[in-house]
């Protein structure tokens, strides 16, 4: 594979030239691209099996049956991290998946959004600090979330309040790809109708889901990306059974009335989504996170901290201190807003000029 045009070899994070199936990729690290996916959704929508099916191995084991006593006590939301070394079409990926069990499962779920936002911002802050060190850490690993896969319940109606709030609040920090969990509860007509309802909501509420067509310079990719966007939200059915027939192994889900093949693109979007996440759009997702989402965050952060163009000349420690202070300031501001506002409009604080 010939190396592509100038691609900066950075020890801090992997910067890739935009990769498409037909173009070349340039690897910068032996252990593979650093890639972080976050999975968010209520219990029962298939997050765990999605992860296992995506990585093609049992990354998360089936949890033991919990005690009956714990049924009425919701666990607080956790961040469970799983590291998987993957290889896709010759490219090594050092994949980290962050699962968030407990999201939306309690009686009062309004604090979940802030927790997610804090987590994502913390990863940005880490990079911010790292970037400004005089002596950078060679072994630094980037934990910024490159894509958040959000599981919507197959209600058949429109988005729920939980869905709208989540996308609204987190869309400026992370690429959000909405998917329909347990999509095998829909017939084809119902799926189309539900997709249309969800898309109408996304437009009406101006929800910042990941825009596959953000890079308008590549016209060939634009056509492909527009087609991809027709599938949003992606229908996902995941399986726990692999069946061997004469054509090889097939991933299935078996019902009394028939068997669904997970990889059959006519039956669900899992195969397409997997290809997008791990092959065709991995570079896009990483690039957008680094070049747009992170940069916007950084700019705001430094502006709030009162820094202009001269920060590079400042001392390491002083800057870290100041960043720490502005971080606290931000957090208390956000907390104050969240308190008074019951949650809806934290975005009002950020007058971001960019469209997602």
């Amino acid at each position, binding site marked *: 594979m010939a190396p592509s045009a100038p691609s900066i070899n950075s020890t801090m994070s992997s910067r890739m030239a935009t990769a498409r199936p037909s173009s070349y990729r340039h690897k910068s690290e032996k252990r593979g691209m650093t890639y972080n996916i976050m999975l968010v959704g209520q219990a029962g929508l298939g997050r765990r099996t999605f992860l296992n099916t995506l990585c093609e191995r049992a990354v998360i084991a089936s949890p033991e049956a919990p005690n009956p006593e714990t049924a009425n006590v919701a666990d607080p939301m956790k961040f469970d991290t799983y590291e998987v070394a993957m290889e896709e079409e010759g490219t090594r990926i050092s994949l980290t998946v962050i699962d968030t069990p407990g999201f939306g499962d309690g009686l009062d779920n309004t604090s979940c959004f802030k927790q997610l936002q804090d987590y994502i911002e913390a990863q940005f802050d880490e990079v911010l600090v790292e970037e400004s060190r005089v002596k950078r850490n060679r072994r630094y690993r980037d934990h910024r979330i490159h894509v958040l896969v959000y599981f919507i319940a197959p209600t058949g109606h429109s988005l729920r309040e939980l869905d709208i709030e989540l996308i609204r609040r987190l869309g400026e920090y992370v690429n959000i790809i909405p998917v329909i969990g347990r999509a095998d509860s829909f017939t084809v007509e119902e799926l189309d109708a539900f997709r249309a309802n969800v898309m109408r909501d996304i437009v009406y509420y101006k929800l910042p889901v990941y825009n596959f067509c953000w890079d308008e310079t590549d016209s060939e990719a634009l056509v492909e990306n527009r087609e991809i966007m027709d599938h949003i939200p992606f229908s996902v059915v995941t399986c726990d059974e692999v069946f061997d027939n004469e054509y090889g192994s097939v991933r299935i889900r078996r019902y009394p009335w028939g*068997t669904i093949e997970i990889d059959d693109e006519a039956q669900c979007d899992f195969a397409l989504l997997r290809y997008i996440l791990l092959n065709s759009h991995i570079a896009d997702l990483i690039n957008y996170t680094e070049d747009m989402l992170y940069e916007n965050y950084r700019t705001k952060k430094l502006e709030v901290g009162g820094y202009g163009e001269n920060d590079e000349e400042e001392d390491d420690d002083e800057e870290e201190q100041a960043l720490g202070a502005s971080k606290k300031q931000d957090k208390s501001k956000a907390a104050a807003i969240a308190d008074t506002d019951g949650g809806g409009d934290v975005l009002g604080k950020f007058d971001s000029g960019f469209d997602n």
Partner: protein
Amino acid sequence: MSAPANDSQDYVGFDTITQQMERKFLKRGFNFNVILVGESGMGKSTLVNSIFSSHLVDSQGRRTAQEVIRKTTEISPVTQTLEENGVRVRLTIIDTPGFGDQCNNEGCWVPVIKYIKDQHAAYLERELKPQRDRVINDTRVHACLYFLNPGSRGLRPLDVEVLKRLTEVTNVIPVIAKSDSMTVEERTVFKRRIKEELVFHRIAVYPYPSEEDGEEDRLLNSSIRDLVPFAVVGSEEIIDVNGTPVRGRRHGWGVINIFDEAHSDFVHLRNFMLRTHLSDLIEVTSQRHYEQFRTSQLRQIKELRAQQAAAAASGGIMGSMPQQAPPQVPAIHQSMA
């Protein structure tokens, strides 16, 4: 000693009371009230329409972007009269749109419990009137279909809170309505977990064991209890399967026939609710839930009167307290809600 033949002189004929009752019943008809409790999108309207084989209720879920998202649980009753072989039923289906649909669901059950108690209160009020109707229009809720979320590993915190309260005021029948996304194995595991959790939290779902039950009833009830929660699939569509019309759902990988016992518990649920336990549901509502309500209400009235009498006797210190006429049931009920 076997009964004498009908034409013999020893035949008394009191066994015809069943036909006499039937004739009265046919003339009068009866009320049947069912409340549906569950988040939107669980398949409540479709299931109820399937059970009664007619389009009784419209789904109240939000389908357009312009509709406002509900902030509270609404109570929306719809009454229709159905007739089958001369028997008329005034069927009221009470839907609860907004239940469990917000980010913060604390207290979303309050309007539901209040509605159920209000019906008991209204009945009590009419019963206590000096001049009361011959037949009181029964709006009490006879059955509550509680919709569980398929795919959850068991009861969720919301389910536990709501079921505890619902089972105290009405007959609760737990169902999983969109069970076509669960494999047979997943269903079995789920049902077992739910049963364990119901037992643990001492949540008593219908049918209740009773000493009056004969052997046959006990067997039937225990086979019903084995099925709980009913894993059903509802459908209002008739689809064509090789020339045969089938009420079901057509997926890309197969056709579900809701009447097929291998596919879903729909037939069992329908038979249970309507063919075997219909009159029991109505009777148990009256004898168990209504009686409990009535007892606690009347006790409260009695205590209140005793307090008033004591206050009046001790020199009218609390003379400013308003006199309450006997059937002030709703007022007291509100203070205990």
